């Protein structure tokens, strides 16, 4: 059992992380905890990161050991969809009180695990550490071990208290919990040469389901998706896959890398966003599988599929291209790879006036430069005030961003479309790109923007701002 500090060190030094690779030795030692600046509004904590990385595993109970705040705010709010079990949507927490803080809450945690197993009988219970329970010294690893042997059921400690660091770090710590306790513990009923893992895809708004039919058509089986629409058993036997596609590299690169190290499963980084990127990803999957010994007729099959799907998508985007050509987009994304969205929007004939690179690696930035030219307006971290200023000046027609920027965009009179985690439409795959273009077109043509941009008619000068 490794301590939290050792674990953090490992994750900090993740060798496959693009950002780390680019660092000098000394810098790398400092790890990837970007110094948080107290007082500046910032993103989520490590607990949140671990929770969102693992919560999409649908059939297990996710038990948050801490005061009500942690589960209260993270309970089922990510649009991560399930095709079967819904246990993951039930909010389980120990909801600790003042007395627990004085006397310790390990017993309460143990009882909570017991009650979950008695009443819900899930294939596993995931127990999440939080700031408060970590501070008072509750050892969730010991409790989980005891519960596991007592009830004969996996009880997985996820040791990522909020104070450990930022959300992204929590994603990785969540991945570590899978590596330590879940992956490699079961055997699949059967395997095929076409089995892959998809890591870092969370099936938000059902995006995985827009991609899966394409994989089916190629004859590829998703052995496990970590963690969108996943079942516990799938994750547990995912080490039998032949290849891995890494979707959101920032979240769970450590899982892909360590699975390569431990089980020899090669991985590539790909994206489901954008027509070109989608096709590249399918090609890469086919290539890796053939390299691992799959019959090579899959290559031709994949090319045929790509040709017909691309043609179909282009034909469906065509009517919009006329309407969208030359419209200017400002892109503020969080987790989604911004370069892949840039490519997608350019495919639709739009012009990108700026894109955020807050969570991008050097490689990502290079690709953006490649796509947008050196003039690329890359935006690092940004306060709402700066964002407001930028929006007012950017002369863009629309901003694509996550939900939290929406409200700033509106005040700056900027049409806005949600492309982040809480979006309501799925934008992955060829289908998703058609949807994205459709939504952009819808947003741009909504009559409310006339009101948004204009001053009240009695309030001259009535100029569009």
């Amino acid at each position, binding site marked *: 059992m490794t301590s939290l500090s050792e674990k953090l060190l490992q994750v900090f030094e993740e060798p496959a992380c693009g950002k780390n690779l680019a660092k000098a030795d000394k810098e790398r030692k400092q790890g990837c905890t970007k110094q948080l600046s107290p007082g500046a509004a910032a993103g989520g904590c490590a607990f949140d990161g671990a929770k969102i990385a693992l919560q999409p595993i649908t059939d297990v109970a996710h038990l948050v050991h801490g005061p009500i705040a942690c589960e209260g705010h993270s309970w089922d709010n990510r649009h991560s969809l399930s095709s079967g079990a819904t246990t993951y949507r039930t909010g389980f927490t120990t909801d600790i009180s003042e007395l627990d803080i004085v006397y310790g809450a390990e017993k309460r945690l143990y009882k909570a695990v017991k009650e979950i197993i008695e009443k819900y009988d899930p294939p596993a219970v995931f127990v999440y550490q939080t700031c408060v329970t970590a501070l008072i010294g509750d050892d969730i690893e010991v409790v989980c071990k005891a519960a596991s042997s007592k009830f004969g059921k996996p009880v997985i400690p996820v040791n990522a208290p909020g104070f450990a660091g930022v959300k992204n770090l929590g994603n990785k710590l969540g991945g570590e919990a899978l590596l330590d306790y879940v992956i490699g513990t079961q055997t699949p009923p059967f395997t095929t040469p076409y089995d892959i893992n998809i890591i870092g895809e969370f099936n938000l708004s059902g995006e995985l389901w827009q991609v899966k039919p394409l994989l089916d058509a190629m004859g590829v089986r998703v052995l496990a998706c970590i963690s969108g629409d996943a079942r516990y058993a799938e994750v547990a036997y995912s080490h039998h896959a032949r290849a891995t596609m890494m979707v959101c590299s920032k979240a769970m690169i450590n899982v892909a890398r360590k699975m390569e190290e431990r089980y020899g499963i090669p991985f590539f980084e790909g994206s489901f966003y954008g027509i070109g990127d989608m096709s590249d990803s399918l090609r890469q999957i086919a290539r890796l599988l053939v390299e691992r010994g799959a019959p090579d007729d899959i290559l031709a099959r994949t090319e045929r599929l790509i040709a017909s799907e691309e043609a179909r998508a282009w034909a469906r985007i065509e009517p919009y291209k006329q309407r969208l050509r030359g419209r200017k987009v400002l892109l503020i994304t969080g987790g989604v790879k911004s370069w892949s969205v840039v490519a997608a929007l350019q495919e639709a004939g739009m012009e990108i006036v700026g894109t955020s690179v807050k969570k991008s690696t050097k490689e990502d930035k290079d690709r953006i430069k490649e796509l947008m030219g050196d003039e690329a307006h890359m935006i690092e971290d940004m306060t709402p005030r700066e964002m407001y200023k930028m929006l007012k000046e950017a002369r863009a027609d629309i901003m694509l961003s996550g939900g939290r920027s929406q409200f700033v965009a509106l*005040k700056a009179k900027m049409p806005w479309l949600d492309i982040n985690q809480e979006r*309501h439409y799925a934008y992955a795959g060829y289908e998703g790109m058609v949807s994205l273009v459709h939504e952009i077109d819808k947003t741009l043509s909504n009559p*409310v923007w006339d009101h948004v941009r204009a001053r009240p008619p*009695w309030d001259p000068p009535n100029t569009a701002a």
Partner: protein
Amino acid sequence: MTQSADKVLDHFELFRQPEYKEMLENKRKNFENPLPAEEVERVREWTKTADYREKNFAREGLTVNPAKACQPLGAVFAAVGFEGTLPFVHGSQGCVAYYRSHFSRHFKEPTSCVSSSMTEDAAVFGGLNNMVDGLANSYALYKPKMIAVSTTCMAEVIGDDLNAFIKTSKEKGSVPQEFDVPFAHTPAFVGSHITGYDNVMKGILEHFWNGKAGTAPKLERAPNGKINFIGGFDGYTVGNLREIKRIFNLMQVEHTILGDTSDVWDTPTDGQFRMYDGGTTLEEAANAIHAKATISMQQYCTEKTLKLVAEQGQEVLAFNHPVGVAATDKFLMEIARISGKEIPDDLARERGRLVDAIADSSSHIHGKKFAIYGDPDLCLGLAGFLLELGAEPTHVLATNGNKEWATRVQALLDSSPFGKNCHVYAGKDLWHMRSLLFTEPVDFLIGNTYGKYLERDTGTPLIRIGFPVFDRHHHHRYPVWGYQGGMNVLVRILDKIFDEIDSHSNIPAKNDFSFDIIR
């Protein structure tokens, strides 16, 4: 038997018991000479077709499920908006019971109103005696400050002359000579409730301005800076008039609400029965002649009234039930122009909030198709708002709309790309709407409570906006005018949209993949 004295089942449960199910089934089989189920099903399906729609729209004699009420209902609405005024309907008393229950069911408040209770002999010999006795009794019993007389069809068919009857009644001492008894002829076989509103509003103003039926000198207009405001027949009158007063006060505009029903249909429960509460005072009604201008919120409710007002030399201005940002802008700017007052920052901020709210939710309404029915002005106001939201008012129908109204709606639809495939239907009823909903389906239906039958038949979710709303409580307390009113309409529409998403994704283990916390 299922039914027993120990546990009496009510209508929800009783006929669902096996004995009753069996009995009803046997009755149907043995005594009702039923058509085969397939035949019933065939016809049911046929009524959903374009073929049936064609026959439905060729209807000439029959109206099925009309979306309008009668003149006297509107007459009572207008009358109760004046201080201490008792509406007195000359005609059969059954009609009056209808008006009272109609309003009570909508506003959840009593509505004071009396009838001259004409019977068969009155029909033969004329209703003079009923008028004489009726005025005397209601004056003595209910101590009103004014009695506003309107008519039902019965009095109109036999041709009773209200002017002469009231004069005679006063001569016979039913009420004092100087007591105010304005009147209007309001036959149900002409127009609809909005016509009745117009006639009584005009009758009352004419009474005060035109020498009180010869009992006083005519008023000479001495123009002042005030603005008169008429809301028209409006199911949201309680919330709306309070909102309008708030807006006028914010703008510091001196105003008179003519027909202020906001208090009479919203009296507090504090141990005191208020037969009359609030309302435009009789003095204000008389002095309204001196105002600078009169504004009607609903053109088709006030056509004759505004003509009368214009003849006095005032500026008159009619809106069509303005809902939303642009419509409210226009309303406020006219008020500002006429009064010379500025629109205060408070209202500009309310405007900004409504714009903000619309933008926040625009993707959910954008491109959704709506069918609207209701009074002509309401239809215009809502259609305008839907276009502003980027929605499509696919069918716009008013049973009491005329050709001129249809032209206005068409012009509105033509003004926006979102109105492209939308159509207007004047003089059609809810059975026409049923065909429209089957042959050209929409996402949502906006209408009054009677729309629930259409919702059940066609599966089109109903957003209740209109009059009457009997089966949901207290909607009338929330304004639909002003920016805050626009917000209420927006929220009502959005709530239904989200309810629909939820109800299509809430069966466990069947379709709850998308049953989400955040929408």
